[in-house]
């Protein structure tokens, strides 16, 4: 491999700091990009990757720190300014204009013109020429929306590079591409690299990191964990950098419960959806907790959405009590007495303006249909029962739920589904963003629920946590269920080595 470090420093970030109310998004982060280098920027949710990119491209202002481009200190005022400095960005959701032609997208704002009129023919000729350099032969007069995401992405890259980009930032460009398209993209990246462009590549896919990156930088909770050449970095070390956990020798305290036996309550056979998650088998018995572990983007949430009918499976069959069932919509799932608390409480879960009581009875009411309103007395009874049961800290049931703390909102959400007396409950990141005390309470609650015969599917990024309460853990990687751990195998170490292992 080329000793890339001998290349001149292209972009140098020192002590970059950025805070938002209540959270330090970036805390004295250093980052160095050399010319002709593909540099992977890695980290879990909330690590600070997007904040770093936003500060770099002028979307956000930094609180402190220095950004040097080719030795000169720079501050981008906005994206257009960043672009003119030579920092181009391509996002996962292609930020181009679907209604304009490919040619116009490439040249908007700098169309060749004469006497104030755009020379459309000349512009199209130059667009064809430019795209042919990327091995793309399309009708540039067609609107961009008529092309696949992969082509749109190449157009976006071509545009950014043509706008004199010295630094090209790719924010999860491969998230919606198939394997063939990813390979094409990588070919383009290698070509750009040989032209001396420095590329920052944000992704969650470890295989892709090893396939294309020269160097990686890992962020966690807004801090720099480390920056290393990829050639001498074992996978397991990379994963432990990302998840923030040394390979510890000490045995985990694990809540040993007798193995759950009996017939599965719910089972999914060969269940999957193309482009979302590969077909998987999954079965849960009453009183069993199954954890889903994997890096961000590995298919955990996708599994949950499929299992709850939010996404419709295109292969396989779901079974309840051994009988095949229809599971195409969340309504079907609710009818089968499934429950789901989503990852993003704020946008997908709570209705902030409604009271705690109204939030708790929401799912039950929906199940009964709007014509059969739950009598107010009954509502009060349900609300007060769960407030007491789950120890939801609120002065009274009529307080708007948005005013409660994160942990209490989470408990109210749980109550919403528990009120429907589910048999199978899916919890996506139940402990995210809540304080340590509430954390422990939620975990105790999970354990108590399965003692009552509930089957639980829990997604969590906290390996220790997931290992402590799960009977079995399914490990996911690159949208695939790669291994199911059970019994003594269930430990944070095994989960981590499984995530890191080659496919």
């Amino acid at each position, binding site marked *: 491999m080329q000793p890339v470090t001998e290349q001149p420093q292209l972009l140098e970030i020192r002590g970059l700091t950025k805070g938002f109310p209540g959270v330090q998004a970036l805390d004295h982060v250093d980052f160095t990009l050399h010319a002709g280098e593909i540099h992977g920027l890695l980290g879990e949710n909330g690590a600070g990757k997007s904040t770093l990119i936003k500060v770099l491209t002028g979307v956000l202002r930094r609180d402190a720190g220095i950004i040097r481009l080719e030795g000169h200190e720079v501050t981008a005022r906005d994206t257009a300014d960043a672009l003119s400095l030579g920092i181009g960005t391509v996002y996962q959701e292609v*930020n181009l*204009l*679907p209604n*304009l032609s490919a040619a116009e997208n490439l040249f908007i704002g700098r169309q060749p013109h004469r006497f104030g*009129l755009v020379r459309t023919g000349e512009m199209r000729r130059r667009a064809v020429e430019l795209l042919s350099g990327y091995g793309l032969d399309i009708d540039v007069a067609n609107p961009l929306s*008529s*092309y696949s995401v992969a082509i749109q992405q190449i157009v976006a890259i071509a545009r950014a590079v043509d706008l004199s980009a010295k630094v090209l930032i790719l924010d999860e460009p491969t998230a919606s591409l198939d394997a063939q398209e990813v390979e094409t993209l990588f070919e383009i990246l290698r070509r750009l690299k040989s032209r001396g462009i420095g590329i920052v590549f944000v992704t969650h896919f470890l295989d892709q990191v090893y396939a294309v990156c020269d160097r990686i930088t890992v962020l966690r909770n807004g801090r720099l964990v480390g920056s290393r050449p990829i050639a001498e970095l074992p996978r397991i070390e990379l994963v432990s950098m990302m998840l923030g956990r040394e390979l510890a020798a000490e045995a985990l305290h694990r809540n040993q419960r007798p193995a759950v036996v009996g017939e599965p309550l719910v089972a999914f056979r060969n269940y999957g959806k193309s482009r979302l998650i590969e077909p998987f088998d999954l079965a849960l018995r009453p009183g069993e907790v199954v954890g889903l572990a994997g890096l961000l983007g590995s298919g955990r949430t996708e599994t949950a959405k499929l299992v709850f009918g939010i996404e419709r499976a295109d292969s396989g069959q779901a079974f309840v009590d051994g009988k095949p069932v229809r599971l195409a919509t969340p309504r079907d799932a609710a009818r089968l007495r499934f429950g789901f608390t989503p990852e993003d409480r704020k946008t997908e879960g709570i209705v902030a303006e409604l009271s705690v009581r109204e939030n708790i009875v929401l799912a039950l009411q929906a199940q009964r249909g709007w014509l059969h309103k739950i009598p107010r007395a009954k509502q009060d009874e349900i609300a007060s029962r769960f407030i007491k049961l789950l120890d939801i800290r609120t002065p009274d049931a009529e307080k708007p739920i948005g005013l409660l703390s994160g942990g209490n909102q989470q408990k109210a959400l749980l109550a919403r589904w528990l009120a429907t007396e589910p048999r199978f409950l899916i919890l996506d990141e139940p402990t995210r963003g809540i304080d340590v005390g509430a954390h422990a309470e939620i975990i105790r609650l999970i354990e108590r629920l399965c003692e009552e015969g509930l089957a639980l599917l829990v997604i969590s990024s906290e390996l220790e946590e997931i290992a402590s309460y799960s009977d079995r853990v399914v490990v996911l990687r690159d949208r695939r269920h790669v291994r199911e751990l059970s019994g003594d195998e269930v430990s944070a170490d095994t989960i981590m080595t499984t995530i890191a292992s080659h496919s």
Partner: protein
Amino acid sequence: MIRRHLPVLITLAVFIVGYLICLAQFPSFASTRVVGNLLTDNAFLGIVAVGMTFVILSGGIDLSVGSVIAFTGVFLAVAIERYGVNPYLAFVFILGLAALFGAGMGFLIHAFQIPAFIVTLAGMFLARGLCFVLTTDSIPINAPAYGQIADIAFALPGGGRLTFIAIVMLMTFAAGIVLAHFTRFGANVYALGGNRTSAELMGVPVGKTTIRIYMLSSLLAALAGIVFSFYTSAGYSLAATGVELDTIAAVVIGGTLLTGGYGTIIGTLVGVLIQGLIQTYITFEGTLSSWWTKIAIGALLFAFIVLQRGLSAASVRSRST
């Protein structure tokens, strides 16, 4: 290629079919007199519709144009008849004033991120209210310049006349086509309608473009007001009420997507002519109330909006497979 121009082609087909129906019933529809009148009668609507097309293409709306037309008429009548201002000077002044008015609305929309609907609704009330401040009467305009300008016309073979105001409208459309399809400003307008955020990220001057769009719309509304004053030879505060809605209808029937980003200026011309055609048919028919125009427009508008939905759904489907 064909798919891209499908909405315009459908509009054109509707116009041709409509025209043939009229022709079958009233052979005189073939005469240049009827055609000339069609253009003259709808000149002011056409001019204001060009500006509205730009606004809607950018994803906005301008409800103030009807009031601006009325204000222009009242202003001209008061200035020329009461104060003896030179008509040409008055034209220049009102065009400048309208441009400022539009730029102000554009500035508010951009700077405070207020929906165009609200800002131009306020503009609509403001301009209409100012009419009544100037006068509550209908003031006839008798200035000699008016008579002279109104008399300018090209004789068409067959006894028809291509009047000055029809020529102004056709020239406005020609200029609009060039502006929309062959300038950077035009591309920026489409960009704004396609995706405002993306446009901003790609370095499109969003603020400047927004201000210019509303400036153009108000400017053309004032021009339409001048043309309307030639047409009626008067200024009246209650004139042109609801014209903004006729204009929006013409633009949408012309194949422009109400959510912005897709559409053409030439389509708007056909949209205006379809409205004119229906009006003319009802005049010829003689027994129908003129409200039937509105009913026909309503039905057409509805059909076109459903059609657009269908087309965009179809294009999404064809891409995902």
